[in-house]
């Protein structure tokens, strides 16, 4: 008997092996590689030298890079707030629609994802550039007298970021609002809660996991989506992601890029941890 259960245990472990293997190769491996890389030094011409150093991390403390972090965080906060303000009501009302309309709306939300977000961002250039769609529209209707020169400005970057990341928020809010038992809202109303009170004490609390996973899904990318900042912000808005990309592709300073990535990862993990501590939400819808 004992032998059999042992065998079964071994068989189970064997069956799980591919999963461990995949995780090792695609998750643990790259992370370890990046961590190791961040403590190595850069070779004179190209590549990496196998000498241990913490210089990469000290380099990040340079004012220019700290400024990048600060700017990046500020942008991420702003974008995430905007996305939450638009995406939460959207996802909430979508969940309250009749089944048929929900399906149609989800379909329209998915369509843009079929094309590359890069392509869609170029679309925004056409809208934002001087004399572009937005300008001519506003000038024709007499709202403004001259070009707003929106392209390559901070608002343009924010708009692009919100545009690219909004579906993630909508979907995670929708996912948890769809699971809501609306009976609970009726119970709250029956017990004396006004419409708003019932929303904040019941609905909002119960869809919080969706909102939080939406925040995580949008906050982290908005620190790193360098191409949005590149395409719509020119060189004016520099994100942490932009620095990493630049160090990797242009300066060929892999160890420094790795150190930057590690710090970014630690920072975002810390933020998630804090958020969970504050809101006491244990599960992030479909995420953790």
């Amino acid at each position, binding site marked *: 008997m004992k032998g059999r259960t042992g065998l079964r245990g071994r068989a189970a472990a064997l069956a799980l092996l591919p999963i461990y293997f995949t995780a090792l190769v695609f998750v643990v491996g790259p992370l370890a590689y990046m961590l190791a890389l961040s403590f190595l030094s850069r070779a004179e011409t190209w590549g990496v030298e196998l000498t241990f150093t913490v210089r990469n991390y000290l380099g990040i403390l340079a004012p220019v890079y700290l400024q990048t972090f600060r700017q990046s965080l500020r942008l991420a906060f702003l974008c995430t707030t905007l996305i939450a303000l638009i995406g939460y009501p959207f996802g909430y009302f979508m969940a309250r629609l009749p089944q048929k309309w929900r399906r149609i709306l989800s379909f329209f939300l998915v369509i843009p994802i079929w094309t590359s977000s890069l392509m869609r961002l170029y679309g925004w250039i056409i809208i934002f550039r001087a004399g572009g769609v937005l300008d001519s529209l506003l000038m024709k209707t007499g709202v403004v007298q001259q070009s707003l020169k929106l392209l390559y400005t901070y608002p343009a970057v924010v708009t692009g970021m919100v545009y690219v990341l909004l579906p993630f928020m909508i979907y995670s809010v929708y996912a948890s609002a769809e699971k809501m*038992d609306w*009976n*609970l809202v*009726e*119970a*709250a*109303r*029956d*017990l*004396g*809660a*006004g419409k708003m*009170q019932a929303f904040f*004490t*019941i609905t909002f*609390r*119960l869809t919080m996991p969706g909102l939080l996973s939406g925040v995580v899904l949008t906050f982290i990318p908005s620190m790193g989506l360098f191409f949005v900042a590149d395409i719509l912000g020119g060189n004016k808005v520099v994100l942490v992601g932009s620095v990493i990309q630049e160090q990797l592709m242009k300066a060929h300073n892999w160890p420094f890029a790795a150190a930057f990535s590690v710090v970014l990862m630690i920072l975002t993990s810390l933020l998630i941890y804090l958020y969970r501590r504050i809101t006491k939400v244990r599960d992030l819808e479909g995420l953790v």
Partner: protein
Amino acid sequence: MSELILQLEQVTKSFGESKVLDGIDLSVYSGEFITLLGSSGCGKTTTLRIISGLESPDSGRVLLEGKDVTWEEPNKRDVNTVFQNYALFPHMTVEENIGYSLRLKKRKKPEIWEEVQKALTLVQLEGYEHRMPHELSGGQRQRVAIARAVVNRPRILLLDEPLGALDLQLRRQMQSELKRLQKQLGITFIYITHDQEEALNMSDRVAVMRDGRFEQIGSPDEIYNTPKTSFVAGFVGSANILQGRVEYAEGDKVCLRHPQGVVWARNLGAPVISGQTVTLAVHSEQVNIEKNSQGYAAAGLLGRVREKTLAGGMLRIMVELGNGEELTVSRCGISTDPEPGDTVLLDWNTQDAVLIDLGEATA
């Protein structure tokens, strides 16, 4: 039963094409336990939702203590509901669930704590205040739902099939507990169920509903012993229903000719004339049965025992009459006599059978 606490006046409600409530009138008195009894889809839950304000009627009025509240929001009505699926707030502890309505009223913390403790004692759940709903059994959740609804001391408590999800034993226990609770609190209970036994057991009055109308409203005794329609007779206590022609009437006693013999019944409705075809209802336990070998009798119905079954301590004897109709006779305990195949004579005391489907007596 003293003053009126709730009145429904000609309330109608349709969902799309289907008419769910077809102009119902109902008066509920302070402190009574009234049950709306009916099968699913008869409109009883809609009635309850209109009383609580979660649904508004298409026409008609809802009066609470004489005040028209038809268009009042649910949170403005002094009425609370125990929902069918309990609807406990999953993110709150038992204490927070029960104290919810008090917190909305901005009562002071120690006061809320005290009220919650009282409510917990009432439903015998002391010590459970810090549990989460998912840590409780079905019966315990039920108790929390009740405590949450009564902590506010509403004028009326609405209960929507509150025992539906519990097993039989627990249901019986909760029935008597609810009854005790109602007496203790003196709150008017409006109770919904499709279980006739539950309705007869607990209520002061029962309102039998069918297709968005009340078929009959009366005390359990009236509903059971003097049903007015074949629906009520069939739904409550599944009485035997027979048709016959009136031979003659003597006061409220009516003699009927049935193809298989002569029977008697009481008439509490509109007067009947001889020759009229009428319907009577008689409960299976009130039918006398005896062996008859002659194949003839001056009164009663002749038939043949088709089968005997024993269920829940009750012996049910199915008797087939000569014309193919079937009657059920029930007895307590096991008896050997008569056996399937025997010819039997069925009859009953006149006061145990009533004429139904006659409409109201116009006295």
